[in-house]
Every structure is written in structure tokens, then in C-alpha cells.
């Protein structure tokens, strides 16, 4: 099994996952709808004080993105677990970590990317614009893949459970905290007109680290879940 066939397996698995999501559609639409509704609820719940909304905007958008991403996590492995595709994945001729990476990439393209596309609209709703908006998009772009990568560990750990829904949030949310902290602080600082290289570097470091390391525990957890 050479590297070409591994690259082929990666791209084919990625494409197949995208095709499946496209054929089901609700998988990618629901998280976005959830995201929009939660942000709207925050705006309604805190009243129409523009200054307050503006100061809360980074936090509200990031927390909503976090929750939306978490709710969609199960779809990475759940259906594969149920129809037996997951065991075939583990028994494939390729390293499981690479295949896991393909599945996580597909998940991010389907659930993370749409969030980033609608985020500008929500920013305008909350009164965030200019520098702050640009930084928010940038942080989401770096941050949401981390959510998918780290979240995959949580799903892999709980996919064998009949009711994994609540426990997965307990596992995954603490690990999301650093992303939330650096993401929101970058937006706040840049909205106040300051350089945010530090926060962005931190997020980038987290992303590189998650890319390198997260597939390992995910693969191990999948083996555990199937045993």
C-alpha cells in the first residue's frame, strides 16, 4: 500500500462524506439554523441595548458557534457506527488516523464552514463591524477546525453509548474553553483597535497541535468503542 493509495483513500472518503451530507442536506442546514437562532435569542433576551449587544457580540457568536458545532459532532461517526462502516474503516489497509482526518475535514466543511459564512450577517445584527468583524471571521476560520478535531475525540469515546448526548458535552466543552478564550479576546481587542497577533498565533498553535495530535486519541477511542 503506497502513499498514492493512501492519498486516494483520503480524498475518496472525504468526497463520499460530502456526497452523503449533500444527499441528506439537513445535516449541514441544521447547525447553521441553530447558530442563527441562538444568536437571535441572545439578542432578544438581553434587550435592544446596542452598547451591551456590541460588547457581548464576540462572546455570543463564539458560544453559539461552539454549541452548534458540538450538536453536530455526533454526525461524524454515529451513522457509520450504526451501519457497520466504522468497523470497515478500522479494518482498512490504511492508517486509521489519516482516515479520521478525512472524516473530520468533511465534517468541518459541512458544519463549520457554513457558520463562518453566516457569521457576518449575525455580526451586523449585533452591531459588530469593521476590524472586529474581520477578526471574528478570522478567529472562526482558525478556531472551528479545532472544535471539529477535538470534538471528534469526544464522539469517538461516546459513539458506542446509546445516549451519548449529554456526556459528550461534559467531555468536549472543557476542551473547547481555550479556543473560546483566545477567540473572543482577539475580537474584543481588535474591536478596541489593538493588534491581536498574540491571540491569533495562539489559536494557530492550537490548530496545528490539534491537527497533529487529535486523530491519535480519536482512532484509539474508535477502537475502544467498537470492542
Amino acid at each position, binding site marked *: 500500500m503506497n502513499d498514492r493509495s493512501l492519498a486516494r483513500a483520503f480524498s475518496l472518503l472525504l468526497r463520499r462524506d460530502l456526497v452523503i451530507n449533500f444527499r441528506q442536506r439537513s445535516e449541514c442546514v441544521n447547525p447553521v439554523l441553530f447558530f442563527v437562532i441562538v444568536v437571535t435569542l441572545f439578542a432578544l433576551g438581553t434587550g435592544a441595548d446596542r452598547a451591551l449587544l456590541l460588547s457581548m457580540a464576540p462572546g455570543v457568536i463564539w458560544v453559539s458557534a461552539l454549541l452548534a458545532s458540538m450538536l453536530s459532532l455526533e454526525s461524524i461517526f454515529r451513522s457509520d457506527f450504526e451501519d457497520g462502516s466504522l468497523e470497515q474503516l478500522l479494518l482498512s*489497509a490504511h492508517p486509521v488516523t489519516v482516515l479520521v482526518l478525512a472524516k473530520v475535514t468533511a465534517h468541518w466543511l459541512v458544519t463549520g464552514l457554513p457558520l463562518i459564512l453566516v457569521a457576518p450577517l449575525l455580526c451586523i445584527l449585533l452591531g459588530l463591524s469593521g476590524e472586529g468583524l474581520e477578526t471574528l471571521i478570522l478567529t472562526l476560520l482558525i478556531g472551528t477546525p479545532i472544535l471539529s478535531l477535538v470534538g471528534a475525540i469526544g464522539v469517538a469515546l461516546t459513539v458506542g453509548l446509546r445516549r451519548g448526548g449529554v456526556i459528550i458535552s461534559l467531555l468536549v466543552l472543557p476542551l473547547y474553553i481555550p479556543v473560546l478564550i483566545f477567540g473572543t479576546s482577539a475580537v474584543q481587542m481588535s474591536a478596541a483597535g489593538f493588534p491581536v497577533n498574540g491571540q491569533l498565533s495562539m489559536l494557530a498553535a492550537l490548530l496545528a497541535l490539534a491537527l497533529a495530535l487529535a486523530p491519535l486519541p480519536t482512532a484509539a477511542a474508535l477502537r475502544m468503542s467498537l470492542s
Partner: protein
Amino acid sequence: MLMSGPDQQQRAEPGLTVSGLHCSRDGRDLFKDLSFRLRAGELLVVEGRNGSGKTSLLRILCGIRMQESGSINWDDSPIGELGPLYHQEMAYIGHHDGIKGDLTVAENIQLAKALGKPSGTDLQTILKRLQLSGYNEVLARALSAGQKRRLALSRLLATVSRLWILDEPFTSLDRRGVEICEQLISSHLTHGGMVVMTSHHAMELPGVEITRLRLS
């Protein structure tokens, strides 16, 4: 279809060697001190009541499940160390078909090829042998249970694997389907392949010696 002769002869003990296998579930022993060998051209049928650990044994042989103790060697190396090297020489059909309902028949087979070590057999030939010709573009979820099972069996033809591990392969197959499956198995064996399987179905494979392993 199989690895050519000289390569195999260099190996001391080609095939699957299981020794002292012990498996327990929820503190109850399913089987203990299980040992057997499987060589080229041999068929092992695992028998036993429901819950006697047949599926567990097969999953241990795949390397999905962990045994309590004992070793499983493939060509003299433990399967845990071989990892993907073992998996590319092995095909597993479990209780679940492992096919995606939202992909077409052709897409499913293509994916199976990419995940394993692809065989030279082309799509049309595979479909013809499984009597699924004309179903290329049909979504797998529209197939009947028997057709889905046959699609799952396509994995055996789409990839090159010396060892087949089949858990109840005849489930939901009709008479014709069972015949197709039996043909697949006997042709695999005559080409020097190995098969471990469980079945409730009484097997009749002319010209094939069947080793039986009873779990109690």
C-alpha cells in the same frame, strides 16, 4: 488474485495461528485456551449456541476486539503489530453490512476498493457475479435486505484478501444468494485463500474439507 507462489514459500508458517485464546464478557468466560491453525485453502466453521462467543471470536481475529490473553499470529507476526499490514490481507463481513445507504451501489464498491487493497476485478464483473447488474446507480438504501447483503459481499471481490472472516454471511440471502456466496467461498479456497466463518446454515461445499470448531 492471490500473492504468487515463491513469496509464500519463503515464509515459515504462512496463515493464521491462534493459541491459548481467552475471552470473557462481563466477567463471564466465553472461551478459554482456544488454539487452532488455518492454512492456505482451509475453511474453518465456528459453531455454537447463541451467546457462545462466535461473533466475539471473529472480532478478536479481526483485531477489533481485545482478547483477555492468548496470541493471534498472521504469518508468524502478532496481528497487533502488523496493524494495517494484516488488515490489507483480510476482509471482514460482520452482522452489519457496512454499506452507506446514501451512496449508490457503484460508489459503495469504489469506496471499499479505496479502503482495502484493490483487486483488478472491474465493477461490471463484480456486479455480475453478485447478480446486481444494472444496479450501479441505485442508492444502496433502496436495495432489499438480500441485495444489501450481496453488496456487502462485493467487498470480497473488490479487494485482494487472503483471509476472509465472515460472520453469518448467508443472513437474509435467498437460495440463489446462498449459492452465489458458497461459490465465492469455494473459489476463494481453491485459489489458496482462507476462510473463517460462522453459519446457522448447513453448508455443502463439494470438494472442500470443512474444519469445525465448537464453542460451548
